[in-house]
């Protein structure tokens, strides 16, 4: 069987190509820029025409999949490529199995209800489409001659027109790579109180993230620092949760941390059943004292 890997980032291109090698005899990689060296048997660089969106590359990639006789498609779970995956799946009469964390015995494991459970899913069709998160194939090694395949753009029947693109201003902190993460939640009632969390970050060398309420609605912290379902899924060495109740939707993004520390004023908050060390108290009283003690 042949596998098609579709990726926007070089890291995903490399890891998914390595994973595809464990599932298929031949690996075809489709990228939108330069491909990493020696990762696949064949490489197709898709040139998205000016005024087109990456999502609309689905028809081009479908033509490539058909021409190569592909049976399984591994896709990097970006916004653009999730649309591409959906369109390819629809055309092939199947469903994309999304945000796969691992594969075992022909089934793909993914979160259900944001982590209440993990489900193992299998396609009932001959053609399979998966979006796969980073880490699923961490142990696999990529190889291949990267033989160039040329691909012509196939315009979709109803194209979406790209008018303009503006880069999002990033906060500069990549919490995915941080060893220590401090997360602020609803316990912060004023934006100025976040300075106490920032001081704690300085003391322990942590990056500052948040639960959903602080980035949605109040906009106190950048959206890309939101931890939980549909946000960041982290596994730092140390995770310090401040004023966060510990609802499952948040904890799924943090429960793979090495050690979890929590401060919350409600002693019955679910966070205290999921932490290593908990401190029951209002962040307004606790944080100055904690910062002084560190």
């Amino acid at each position, binding site marked *: 069987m042949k596998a098609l890997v579709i990726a926007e980032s070089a890291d995903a291109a490399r890891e998914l190509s390595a994973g595809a090698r464990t599932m298929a005899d031949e690996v075809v990689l489709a990228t939108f820029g330069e491909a990493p060296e020696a990762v696949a048997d064949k490489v197709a660089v898709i040139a998205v025409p000016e005024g087109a969106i990456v999502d609309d590359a689905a028809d081009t990639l479908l033509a490539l999949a058909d021409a190569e006789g592909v049976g399984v498609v591994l896709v990097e779970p970006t916004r653009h490529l999730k649309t591409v995956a*959906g369109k390819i799946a629809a055309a092939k009469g199947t469903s994309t199995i999304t945000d796969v964390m691992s594969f075992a015995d022909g089934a793909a494991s993914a979160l259900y209800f944001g982590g209440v459970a993990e489900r193992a899913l299998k396609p009932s069709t001959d053609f399979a489409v998966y979006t796969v998160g980073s880490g699923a194939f961490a142990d696999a090694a990529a190889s291949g001659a990267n033989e160039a395949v040329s691909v012509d753009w196939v315009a979709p029947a109803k194209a979406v027109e790209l008018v303009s693109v503006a880069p999002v201003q990033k906060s500069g902190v990549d919490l995915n790579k941080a060893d220590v993460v401090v997360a602020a939640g609803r316990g912060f009632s004023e934006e100025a109180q976040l300075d106490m969390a920032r001081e704690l970050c300085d003391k322990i060398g942590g990056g500052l993230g948040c639960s959903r309420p602080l980035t949605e609605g109040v906009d106190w912290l950048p959206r890309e620092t939101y931890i939980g379902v549909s946000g960041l899924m982290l596994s730092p060495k140390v995770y310090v949760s401040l004023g966060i109740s510990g609802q499952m939707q948040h904890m799924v993004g943090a429960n793979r941390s090495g050690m979890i520390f929590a401060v919350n004023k409600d002693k019955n908050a679910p966070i205290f059943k999921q932490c290593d*060390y908990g401190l029951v108290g209002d962040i307004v009283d606790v944080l100055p004292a904690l910062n002084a003690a560190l």
Partner: protein
Amino acid sequence: MEIAVLFKVVPDDQDIQVKADRTLDFSKAKPKVSEYDLNAIEEAAQLAAANPGSKVVAITVGPKSIDDSKLKKNVLARGVDELVMVADDSLDGLDAYATAAALAKAVESAGSFDVLLAGDGSADNYAQQVPVQLACVMGLPVVTAATKVDVDGAAATIERTLEDAVETVRVALPAVVAVTPDIALPRIPGMKDILAAGKKPAAITAEQAPVACATEVVSCLAPESADRKLVVLDAKADGAIDEFAAALKAAL
């Protein structure tokens, strides 16, 4: 303008219990509108308000249990004019492929629409695939991750917020548009809205020809919980903050 807003009814995740064998028990979980679909419903209502003479039809498919009077009123109290529901146990636990097939039929039976709005992802699967698959079934263009939608005439200008960029796109209508939760904050319906909701048209039908899923669930188990120390101290107790600080320092 005719606006359809697609939503999913899911069990309330606050009341999902994990049994001793790690399987899930949904028996206490009441049906509710999947959280981020409320934002899509609000955007539909606001889009209708900005374009006088518009109509909003909310559409869903699912098992018989979604035909819940409180839930139906809750949807119709949010600026929605009509509700279309296909409630049939053959539509339980569908994947994106089967959902899109059922939804497409429900949409076609409900009328013709200029804009079909959907939420960012459902609380259960969060696959973000149904709007895309529905657009494919209906032969329509699709735009996801929308944070702003402006309709003028036969096209819409949409701002979509991606991981590292904001794209402004233009799409001919009709189109399927999946919106992020940021687009509109769901309203809290008042008593008057809820009373009026009971008088709005709601069509509840059974599925005639269900489409089979393209994926199967092999297992569904709660994760084994990580072994945590669970040392919880009262901040007011003597030495509690020092002990917490010492443990934190030791962990770094």
